[in-house]
Structures are given as C-alpha cells and as structure tokens.
C-alpha cells in the first residue's frame, strides 16, 4: 500500500530558507529604505518642512507617505526571484533527478516550496509594517490603518504573482523561458489587447486612435492593483494653502479578495501541473503537452497579426491605397509570417529544425484557415468594431475634436452626437477610401470620443475631406455635412468654444495685436493697446461691445467655423495675422472646460484647493478673418486699432516677409 505523504517537509523548508534568505534580506533593506528611513528623513527637520507649513501633522504625513509606497511592483519582482531560486532544481536534469529521488513527494516539495517563498517574501513586509507601526505610535496612530492595508495589498499581490510564477515555471522546462512566460502571463491580457489595438489602429476604419483608449482591466494585475487597490487620501486646502481636511481612504479590498481567490485557484492548477509533470521534460521549451498548441497558435496568430498590420502600414506609406488593398496586403503578409512563426515555435518546442512533415503541415494549414477567417472577420467587421457606437444610456459625455474641441454632456446633445456618428457610419464604402477617391481634395481628421459611465473610453478617428469641394460626391456630403452643421451651429459654438458662461459673463480682459510695416526699418511693428489710462469699468465697457460684436459674427457663421478642409492656402487671404483673445468670467457659475474634460485633466484628485474645483474664468483665443465685420468694426470703434492697414491677412504678411512657404495660421488657433 502506498504511503500517505504530508504537505510539509521541515528539512526541505530549512534548506529552501537557507538558499533564499539573502533575497529576503535585500528585500527587507529596500523596504526599510523606502519606508521608515525615507519617512524619518522627510520629518527630520519638521519645523522647516512643507507639511509643517501647511498644517499637515506627522501622522497625516505618515499616511500620505504610505499612499506613495509601491505595492504590485515590489510583489511582481520578489515573487519570481524567490520562485526561481526555490524551484531551481526543476530546470536542471541532475538537480531534478536527485531532488525527486529523495524521500519527498511532489506534494510536499511544492507546498513546502510555497511556504518557504511566502515566509521569505512576507516576513520583510510584516517586519517593516511593525517598524512603521512603532513610528506611528510615536507620532500619531491615524496612519496605522494605512500601514497595515499597504501590507495586506503587498501580501495579496505577492500570493497572486507567486501563483502566476508557479504556473509559468511549471509550464516550461527551461528557467529563462519560465521567467519569460511569467512576465508574458502577468501582462498577457494587456499584450493581447495591445496587439488587437495596434492591428485595428493600422487597418480598421476609424480606429487610428485606438491605442489612446486602452483601459486597464482586472486581468492586468500589475497595472490594476496600483490603480485600484491602494492607500489613498484627499487633502482639501484653503485658498491660501493651509490644510482644511484630510480624507483617508483604503480602496479596493473587494479586488484583493478576488485576486486572492484567483491566486489560490492558480496555485492549485500549478500543483496539478507539477504532480503530473513528466520529469524527462526538463530542458524542454514547454513541459506541458496541452500548452504546446496553445503557445504555437497564440504566438503565430498575435505576432503575425501585428506584423501583417505593420507590413500593410509600410505599403500604405508608399502612396495612397484603398482600404481593401491595404487589408489584402495585411492578410497575405499575416498568413506568410504566421506560417513562419508556426514552424519557428515548433522548432523551439521540439528543439530541432526538422519539423517539416505532413502532420505539421496539416496543423499549419488548419491554423492558417482559422487565422484567415479571423482576419476576414476583422475586414468585414464581424466583431462590430468599426460600427461600434455605444448606447446613449451608457455614455457620460461625447467629445468631438475637429478644428475645436467640444464636449457634450446633455442627453439631447449626446443623442444627437450618437445619431450623427451612426449616420456617418452608414456609408463606410464612401468614406473609408477618401485618401484615394479624393486624393487632391484638402482634408483633415476629426475624432469622436465617448466617455462611458463605467470609466472606459471609446475613441474613433476619421480622415475627412472638404465637403465644399466640387469633387466630392453628394453621398459623401450627405454623410459628413450633418456633423459640420452640428458643430457650426452658433449656439453650439457659443456654448462649447466660448463656454457655458458665454451669455452670462464679464469680459475682464481683451487684446488685439496690430501689425504695421515700417518701410524705413524694413520690418513689422507689433503693438497691443492695453488702455492703461482707462479705469477697469471703462475697459470692460469697451470689451463688452467687442464681445457682443463677436457673438453677432458667430451668429452669422463668420468665426469659430469648423471645416474638414484642414489648412488651405486659399484661406490665407481671409485669415488675419493679428492676434485676438479675451477672458470671460462669471464668479457665480462654474466654468465647464470642454478641452480639459476631453483630455481628462479637470483636476488633481488628491490635492484640492478651496475654489479650485470650480473654475470661473477662461481665456479664449479667436482666429479672426476679414469676414468678421462686426468684430473688426467694434475693435476699431473701441480703439484697439485705428487704421485698416493695421489689420493684415496671412497672405499679405507672407508676401511682405518674402516667405515662400507660408506659416500655418492653424497652429495659432
């Protein structure tokens, strides 16, 4: 009868510890330097510190210090270092044969190994937390929760990354490959998504900006844990910079619980892999039979897909090509590269170059057919990537960026933007090959960004051409003009270019630079009138008149107009070289910044200052043109300039300066 075996072997445990304690000591020293030492240094001259000046206590400072401490980044390193040292014997024939000849079962070797790794990885964390707790007891105990929550995050992260490390090390018979697999598995979801996004950015209609909207998911723990499981705080300061309140937060306990359960499952799977591992697979690239096809197909598919997209990108760089021809190049190159990688991985797995046989050829053909099917699905948008438009109920706001950046938050505006986007996508054939069909028509890009209520973003970017060109088809105009009509609606312009306070604001500042040519000195004289002799009231009266004139020009569609033409030299005879801008202020109503919202830069979530959260003032730059009759007249009446020769177009400026190639007025907008 076979004997029963235990989970733990004391002799092996001691031996493991004797081999890994040095790594644990180094880890402890690093933690010591990062935590107590750096904290003590930061408070050493307390009365002269920033914290002391703004009214932050040592206890609060300790909590803030804990919120800056690394978590998953530490765990991901220590887990693989200790796992590789402890299970080193699995990768060398002599070592593995002897270790398994000793009276130790695999169950005992595995769980003893795990126990010793956790001992060496966790003791430094607990020791440093105890030291920090002692410090907290001497200054203020409010940071105690933060200290031990940090320890919990690091411990759970260590268990999680240890489970991934064990899985990776059990999958391969080579240590270096096992370590490489570890980092691949840690980043697997992120890398797979990245591969799809790179491919779609190069090949799919409207996906040019897809890399900008990659979101971190729970499947990418290395990025997700620091962002969602953390010791955090919100510090509110008074307007003059003194701390008013500090809200301390311990976030993400539910995710830690999920990760802990996932780690236990993965540790169990890894144990089963070890239990049934054939030790003759030492030195094999992949030691687990079922992983061989997974690895082969995964490598061949993802690498060839991205490489095919790059080949297509290179082909595209040689000239204007249709969407279909680019995709054909991508498919053919993907399939060829896929076959090469398929056999290359076979060579790695079987450790021989003699892998070309009928059986492998059939497998490769099967893989190629499936890869072709997936690529064709991408081409015909079977996964609904190109046509994806979110439901209005899921959308927090919609941003459209063309000549100006506008963000729409109201239900009506969101619905309108969505319907415009859907209308735009109804005739993709007409739109996706504009670079070939309308090669000589001026064009640009416009971007639609959906910010979803769950925090994700969907970004689509389209190449478009001038709808006023006589060369473009009525179908093209029908698809694109509604978007321009929407963006050029005077109410939309006033609301989203000037801002939500456009009709209830004071204009506190305004400038208009004049440009005259000095024939004697043969150069331009630049001048801006600041009305230094006038009172603030008198100045604001002048500004208000000009502002009202500008609103009239907006109503007449003369300024802040969006076109899809991009920069064209034809507009030079109208665009003014003179700079014009103004400040709008409403002390009662917060200013909503479309640009800041679009780029997610509204505020620093950790440190807020009284009044800072509510912005009440905004500077607006306006690119005037000769058609802005009301504004120009008002500026002249208000004595911003006196003679018409002080107003100069880009065309005139460039001619006078003798520039062969004109400066681009768009760059100043």
């Amino acid at each position: 009868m076979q004997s029963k075996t235990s989970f733990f072997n004391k002799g092996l445990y001691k031996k493991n510890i004797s081999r890994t304690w040095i790594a644990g000591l180094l880890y402890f020293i690093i933690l010591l330097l990062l935590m107590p030492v750096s904290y003590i240094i930061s408070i050493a001259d307390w009365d002269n510190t920033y914290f002391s000046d703004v009214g932050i206590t040592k206890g609060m400072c300790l909590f803030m210090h804990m919120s800056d401490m690394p978590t998953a980044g530490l765990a991901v390193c220590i887990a693989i270092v200790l796992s590789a040292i402890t299970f080193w014997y699995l990768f060398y024939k002599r070592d593995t044969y002897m270790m398994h000849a000793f009276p130790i079962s695999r169950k005992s070797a595995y769980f003893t190994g795990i126990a010793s790794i956790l001992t060496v990885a966790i003791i430094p964390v607990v020791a440093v937390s105890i030291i920090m707790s002692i410090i907290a007891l001497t200054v203020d105990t409010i940071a105690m929760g933060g200290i031990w929550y940090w320890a919990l995050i690091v411990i759970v992260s260590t268990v999680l990354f240890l489970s991934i490390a064990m899985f990776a090390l059990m999958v391969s018979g080579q240590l270096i490959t096992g370590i490489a697999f570890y980092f691949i598995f840690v980043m697997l979801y992120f890398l797979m998504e990245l591969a799809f996004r790179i491919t779609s950015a190069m090949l799919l209609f409207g996906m040019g900006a897809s890399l900008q909207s990659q979101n971190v998911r729970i499947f990418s723990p290395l990025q997700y844990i620091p962002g969602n499981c953390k010791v955090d705080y919100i510090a509110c300061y008074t307007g003059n910079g003194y701390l008013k309140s500090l809200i301390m937060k311990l976030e993400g306990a539910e995710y830690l619980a999920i990760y802990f359960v996932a780690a236990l499952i993965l540790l169990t799977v890894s144990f089963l892999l070890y239990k049934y591992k054939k030790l003759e697979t030492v030195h094999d690239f992949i030691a687990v039979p079922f992983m061989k096809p997974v690895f082969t197909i995964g490598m061949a598919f993802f690498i060839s897909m991205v490489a095919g997209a790059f080949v297509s990108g290179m082909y595209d760089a040689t000239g204007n090509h249709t969407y279909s021809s680019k995709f054909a190049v991508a498919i053919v190159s993907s399939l060829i590269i896929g076959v090469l990688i398929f056999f290359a991985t076979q060579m790695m797995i079987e450790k021989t170059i003699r892998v070309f046989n009928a059986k492998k050829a059939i497998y490769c053909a099967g893989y190629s057919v499936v890869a072709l099917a997936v690529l064709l699905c991408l081409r015909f948008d079977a996964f609904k990537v190109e046509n994806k438009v979110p439901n209005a109920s899921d959308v927090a706001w919609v941003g459209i960026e063309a000549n100006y950046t506008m963000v729409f938050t109201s239900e009506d505006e969101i619905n309108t933007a969505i319907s415009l986007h859907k209308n735009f996508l109804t005739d993709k054939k007409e739109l996706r090959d504009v670079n070939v069909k309308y090669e000589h028509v001026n064009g640009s890009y416009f971007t639609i960004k959906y910010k979803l209520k769950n925090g994700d973003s969907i970004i689509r970017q389209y190449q478009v051409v001038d709808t006023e060109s006589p060369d473009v088809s009525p179908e093209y105009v029908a698809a694109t003009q509604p978007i321009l009509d929407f963006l050029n609606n005077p109410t939309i312009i006033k609301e989203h270019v000037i801002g939500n306070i456009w009709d209830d604001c004071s204009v506190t500042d305004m400038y208009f630079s004049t440009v005259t040519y000095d024939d004697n000195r043969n150069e331009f004289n630049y001048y801006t009138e600041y009305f230094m002799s006038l009172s603030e009231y008198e100045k604001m009266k002048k500004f208000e008149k000009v502002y009202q004139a500008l609103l009239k020009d907006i109503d007449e569609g003369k300024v802040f107009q969006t076109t899809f033409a991009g920069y064209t030299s034809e507009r030079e005879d109208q665009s003014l070289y003179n700079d014009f801008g103004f400040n709008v202020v409403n002390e009662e109503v917060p200013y909503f910044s479309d640009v800041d919202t679009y780029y997610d830069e509204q505020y620093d979530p950790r440190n807020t200052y009284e009044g800072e959260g509510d912005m009440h003032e905004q500077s607006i730059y306006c690119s005037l043109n000769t058609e802005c009759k009301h504004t120009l007249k008002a500026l002249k009446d208000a004595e911003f300039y006196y003679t018409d020769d002080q107003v100069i177009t880009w065309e005139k400026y460039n001619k006078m300066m003798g520039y062969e190639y004109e400066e681009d007025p768009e760059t100043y907008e």
Partner: protein
Amino acid sequence: MIQVNNVTKKFGDFTALDGLDMHVERGAIYGLVGPNGAGKSTIIRHLCGVYKQDAGDILIEGQPVFENELLKQKMAIIPDDIFFFLQANTKDMMKFYKNMYPKFDEKLFFKIAECFPEINMKKMVRSLSKGMQKQVAFMLAIASRPEVMILDEPVDGLDPVMRRQVWSLIMSDVAETGVTVLVSSHNLRELEDVCDHVGIMNHGKLLIERSLDELQTSITKIQIAFEGEMPEMPEEIQVLKKISNGRVHTLIVKGEPRAAEQRIAALNPLLMDVLPLTLEEIFIYELGGEDYAVKDIIF
C-alpha cells in the same frame, strides 16, 4: 525485493524501456550492464521514483516506488551525476540527509569520514573534485542506513585505491546490514568481483538475468589439440565460437561444461584444457554474434 514487471517507457517516439522484467532478491548485489542507450539509467530513474512508467509495475518490497516517501526513506541513491545544493558543505548536506532519512546515523557518517581524510567538511561540496564528491555521496548514502542502494556508475571518476575502498565499504555494509544493492556499470571486471547477480540490458529489454555463478558455468572455454585435423564435434555440443591457431583450437561452448568435456575427451585430443570465462568474455561470446553494440561495454 525489487520487482520490475513488464515496464514500458516511451520518450516521444523512442521506446526506452520495452516490456522490461527485472527481479532483484533481498540482500543481493545486482549488476546491471548494457551498452550506452540500453536503458540502464532510465530504469534506475524509475527505481528512484523520478520517472513514472507508461505501463507495467515497479515494486520495491511490494510497494510502488513513485511518490512513496516512506519507501524512499529506505533507499539511498548515488546517480552518475551527483547533486549537491549550491553553497552547501559536507556538514550541511549531512544535516539535510539527517532531516530526510529517519535512520541516518551521524556517528557512522563521521566514522566513514575518517576513511576519507582528504575531504574538508567545511568546504563547499560543489568545489570538491569529482572523485571527492563521489566519496561524500557514499558517506551520505551509507550513513542513511538504507535497505536498498541504487548506484549508477558509482566508482566512475575515482582512482583505483579509492575504488577499492568504496567497494569495500559497500561490501562491509552489505555484510553488516544485508542491504540490497543494484549497481549499474560499464566496468564488467569490477562488477564480476562484487556482484552475485547480473542483468544484461539492451534496447530497453533485459536479455539475461542470472546469478554470476550460473552465468559463468553456462559458457566454457575449451582449448584442444588433435594429432591431425580436428574431428567433427558431436551435435550435443553447442559451439558459440571456434578459433584455430595451428593445431590448437579454442572453442567457446554453451551448456554444462562437464558434459562437454566428457564428450570432447571421447574424441581423444592430444591436449584439452577447460577454462572459466570472465564476465566480459561471456558478454562478448553470448551476445557478440547478435546485433548488439557490445563494444561499448568493453573497457
């Protein structure tokens, strides 16, 4: 004691063990010989519980060896390529063995160590010479007080004096404790001196498994000379090989030697000598006619 019944092991398409049967009695010193690639190391790794067979049974004391901690506590292994922990000195290894093997005899360990005075107990084992590492392995194995010792090329790398010393240690341990020893070696002359049973392997199968005495009496070398031409040998005499040098003929005869001697004597030879064969010669004459890579096992 050790029973290997119809064991098969494949590595991919290659069959390393092909229905192997092997039986080692308690207290025996069993020599396992065979050319390179015969499957010796493979069956030894099965016996150590490193590999798991695809088919068949491997039993020691009636118990399967794979993943059997208690059984392995009664076994000591010395592989051809010995493993010691990195940074570990002889004393560290002794402590590890002491934790692994409940019967480990520390006093015996230090007593044996006296036989190997050149070994520095505080020096890292991996920095010792190959021969010294083997000596340390023997010290540890014998001090573990095993009931079964499995040795793969145990004295390979040792000088002749040290070989003799190591073998005498093993023999005294056998005499004292009745330990069963399975030893794999290419060195047939050495095995002949120490083994009482021999198994000859090739292509993953055991071709012959007998006691050495039985093996040595089953094949005889007879040197004969006749006045004229050598007469036809009787049909009952199975001649494996005949070498003639002038009037003197050397016959390798299979079967009972006394019966062969009587039959040949009836032919009135001028001269007749019956000589025993060495294990090496038995191996060559028994298998030389077959398609085996016998050259590999002759030193």
